[in-house]
């Protein structure tokens, strides 16, 4: 699980082009949207692509995404339980 969280942080930084942010800067329970990492609606869509591409998880309901993408913790938990690759 810890490895998955670190992997996720690295991927998010890369995919969302988060400049000057390192894996160490992101805490497991930091909110990803709003005040946290300041992600926006396009980032949320990009995370949906990441879930599909890297973990074989298809999310089509954006509302579903909202609870999964709360933090690294919630994302990792969901991925661990639902991944197909």
């Amino acid at each position: 699980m810890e490895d998955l969280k670190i992997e996720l942080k690295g991927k998010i930084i890369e995919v969302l082009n988060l400049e000057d942010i390192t894996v160490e800067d992101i805490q497991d329970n930091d909110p990803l949207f709003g005040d946290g990492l300041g992600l926006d609606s396009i980032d949320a869509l990009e995370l949906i692509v990441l879930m599909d591409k890297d973990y074989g998880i298809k999310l089509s309901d954006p509302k579903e995404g909202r609870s999964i993408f709360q933090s690294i913790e919630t994302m990792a938990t969901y991925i661990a339980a639902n991944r197909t690759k």
Partner: protein
Amino acid sequence: MKSGKEQLVCCSMKKVYITSTSCLSSVGADKQLTWQGLQEGQSGIKKIEKFGFLEDIYAGQIADEVIDTQWNKLNIKGIYTRLEKMLIIALKPMIDLKKPTDTSQLILATTKGNINNLANTGVKGADINDMIQRIADLFGFKTTPIVVCNACVSGILAVSIGKRMIQMGVCEDAYIVAGDELTPFVASGFNSFQAMSDEPCKPFDANRKGVTLGEGSAAVYLSTECTAQETVFEVIGEASIADANHISGPSRTGEGLYLSIQGALREAGITAEQVDLVSAHGTATNYNDEMESIAFDRSELSSTPTHSLKGYFGHTLGAAGLLELVIVIESMLYNQLVVSKGYEISGVSRALNMITANSKLSLNTALKTGSGFGGSNTALLIAKRN
């Protein structure tokens, strides 16, 4: 803003009229057939089982046979892409009515041009300038064509740009043509935005599920000519103000659209009360329709008969504004309201007077709006003359 000086400048501006129009749509192979189809409530939106790697999408696609039939009637030699044929089919009736002079301006509105060529021919085959130059050469235009590429407002904005050029005296007339094709390029992108409806789109409705894409082409002829014999449509006001809010999401307050409508009203010197018809953009995404309802409400247009035509054509992108303007003009010509297809129960926070029946109404002044990616907005006011 509204200084005496401004009034003086505006009053001294030439009047610009739309004197002829034409289109090719998924509803009908020409303007008459499209208008007739709308009267009968026909929609061009159908289910497509396979489109690129997407399955079971709804879209307003024009059958290749329809394009071929129209194309063959023109007897034009040379090799043209499918989109170029669509543009030429729309433009030809304008040219037949009046041949371009040495100063006539050709203006194209498109978002993606020949983007379908990109995978096969690289950037050269998808070059928009090359495409419109071929069409300009075909019809003997002497001036360099201009392309307006401003996302989904392109079609309406192109009319504003042409009007401004005529008013500034750089040309006497302008041929505005707009077209975009339904392509896997665009469909895959909208799909990645989770923006596509899994049923024909329902603009402003409570059960709307997103966009239905479409394709089409349209053309209008702009000039300063206004003869007593024919009904013409004066472009009385227009404005294109950005939201400056977000690259893909519309403003929550409808600011850019509101300011665009206000700008158009100011130029026309009329109040919202004098507008008889609003032809909205109405893409049927949650945020867009909500934003428009706020902007119309703020503009005091909530009781004006309003429609979105996306339920018939789908969203035809860069062609949308012009194709829909052509229908608005028919609507005004026949004093006939067009039902806002797909609308049943209001799904926006502000009251709107959505058109739900094909009724007759005297239509002298209409507002056409568009909003698009990049937070772009355009409002155009036209008034019937003669």
